[in-house]
């Protein structure tokens, strides 16, 4: 079986409001689903790896084939519920370790 390649995305969450990780991840899934439908979203392999609500920082995992989809969906997010939000991709890496090293730099 072919190994699924993945990428880790560090995200900066730009909002005056604090969201819990479930709320945030539901909104990400919602954005991917809105743009690419349920079939497209199912191929993205989105998983939450790390989340810091206070700092507005998150790390998510996506499959490599869906990275452009994920980027577009994250950029299209403008609100969670009625609260305005903007999500920016800070860094992308193939391993969690390398991602954190990149962010530190």
């Amino acid at each position: 079986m072919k190994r699924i390649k993945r990428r880790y995305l560090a995200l900066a969450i730009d909002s005056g409001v604090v969201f819990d990780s479930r709320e945030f991840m539901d909104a990400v899934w919602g954005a991917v689903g809105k743009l690419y439908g349920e079939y497209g979203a199912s191929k993205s392999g989105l998983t939450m790896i790390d989340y810091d609500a206070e700092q507005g920082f998150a790390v998510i995992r996506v499959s490599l084939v869906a990275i452009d989809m994920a980027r577009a969906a994250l950029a299209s997010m403008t609100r969670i519920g009625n609260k305005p939000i903007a999500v920016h991709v800070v860094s992308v890496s193939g391993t969690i370790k390398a991602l954190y090293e990149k962010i530190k730099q």
Partner: protein
Amino acid sequence: MRRLYADLHLCPNLNDPKHVSALINKASELGYRLIAIPLPPNCTDQEKRQIQKLCAEARMDFASRIDLKPRTPNELLSNLRRIRRRFEIVSVLCDSKNVSRQAAKDRRVDLLNFPPTDFRNRFFDMAEAELASNSVATLEIDMQLLLTLEGPTRTRLLSVLRKEAGIAEGFHLPIVLSSGASNEILLRKPVEMAALASLFDLSKESALEAVSKNPVAIVKRNREKLSPQFVAPGIRIVRKGKDC
């Protein structure tokens, strides 16, 4: 070589200096190095300098821009005659076929903008693209609506944008992606703008050029034209005096 990213359509509330400053700082934080803000036709040099100063503080370059909304081709021509030399970028909102055609063939127009949600009045077709490709006009796409619209309206907008981007690429007409953002939450990084452009099938390379090379080229060309040394395209004064 590192790309220089530009957003030629920031729309802050010019009556609120704090809002202008916040939007400029956010654009700088997101990686833009050149921005343009539409100014009113009667804007003074002092107002321009104030915005320029804010941009300089945020380590960004500022280009003055005017958005024209003429109702007839004659109104467009008279507006262009009056304001062309006062602004670095001239954008025309084409909401009728006659105005679109005139704007596309006039070399004084830099950006062609079409009504975002009035899909019947988007006259960017092959004829328009051919006219524009023979002049210097560029198709401008505001990304703000892609973020704010939802449901069938966004689907329809994506479909129209896909068609227009395809036509523009077919005629080698440059595309400029602008934010059109009136608040900070609607601003996106240049790479994110390129990712959003993939929704209407613009390739990654073309999309990145649309937020870097294409807008920068417009500003560079117009600054050269507006400089006192400019005589004609390719000809400029290098020295003045009796010994020339």
